[in-house]
């Protein structure tokens, strides 16, 4: 059957992997598998938390500015006190 689904570009995949690691390490996002749907909601919520902390525009999306900040050299202590 014809499908318009496209494989995710590697760049997108890299971004998602970077974000996941970042949010697990600094924003207390649980590691490991989640129910489909739940994990993307959770990820969006954690992205929002990170954007709020850094006073970025809170979109819940991995926009350029958010990814750029995730790539900056930084301290290894989480931003949300656990």
């Amino acid at each position: 059957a014809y499908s318009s689904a496209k494989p995710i570009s590697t760049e997108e995949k890299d971004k998602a992997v970077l974000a996941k690691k970042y949010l697990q390490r600094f924003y207390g996002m649980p590691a490991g598998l989640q129910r489909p749907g739940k994990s993307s909601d959770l990820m969006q919520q954690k992205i929002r938390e990170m954007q709020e902390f850094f006073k970025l525009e809170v979109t819940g999306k991995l926009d350029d500015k958010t990814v750029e900040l995730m790539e900056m050299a930084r301290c290894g202590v989480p931003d949300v006190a656990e």
Partner: protein
Amino acid sequence: YNHFPRDLKWKTTNVTFRILNYTPDLKKKVVDRAVRKALNVWSKVTPLRFTKTFDGTADIMISFGTKEHGDFNPFDGPEGLLAHAYPPGIGIGGDTHFDEDETWTEDYHAFNLFLVAAHEFGHALGMAHSSDPGSLMYPVYSYAKGFPLSEDDIEGIQSLYGENPDHEKFKPKPIAPEKCDPELSFDAITELRGETIIFKDRFYWRLHPNMPEPEQTLIKNTWPEIPNKVDAAYENPERDVVIIFSGIKMWALNGYTLVDGYPKYIHKLGLPKTVRKIDAAVNIRDTGKTLLFVDEEYWSFDEQTGTMDTGYPRSIEDDFPGIGDEVDAAAYHYGYLNLYHEHTQFEYSYSARKVVRIMRANSILNC
């Protein structure tokens, strides 16, 4: 500023530290000095006193390691994670680890050990991350000279340990300005290739047409060569340069790079030596003239000829009735001159020769 849960802190103000190993990037005594200086940053503003030990277990155990280095909290090779530290407590509490895969320096190259250590010792004393980009406890690394604590850091650590009973004079870095503070005034405004740059204290906001949220950054992070304080700025679109004024000097920026031959003295424009500071500058694209506002007067500089127009200075109050007699910042858009003074913005119509709108200065920041 933020603290860790339950405001974790040391129960005594006498804290011990021990350096377990050293980075090969720096001489041993340079590392010793950087660590001591980094601890002194915090003892300068609190009753905290730090004693170095050479054996046994100290409160703050300091070490360099790579990847997994014993605390199941691995580093990640060059860049990325630079160091981490644990909040006050027994055992690993207070311990501070540096990623040996980084290059550690004592100046602005790569990562300055003193600055990173001062940040990590903040954690070791009970400070969590701050979202103030001008604070030492901001999570992202940035190099800055001078006393590294901002007022935000000092407020945070003193709310845990109190003030230093025998404090000496020090100049903390001011807190980052809040864009929606109703009293906010601007130091300078300029266009830069379609973006709007607004300078305030050590920071600037960058507005981009398709970026609804203004982005606040330290001036030195983008233009390390220009001072922390900008008095005035304007863009000359013909030459694709932005001129930055601070005191009696001016710099020319071509995008984000400094044009050779700068800084120069502002008097090269034809201003009298008595002028020591320019309050605001704006290029009127339609006439090719740049207006330079100083105290209650303004000059007109002809960009084409590179000379000051005759008949100046003229009175601001006379030529721009309704805006008062001083200007902090100025911008020009499609026949309207926006003149900012304190927390007010006056929109002056060239054609109507009058103020047509008065707004809050920070309405430009979507406030």
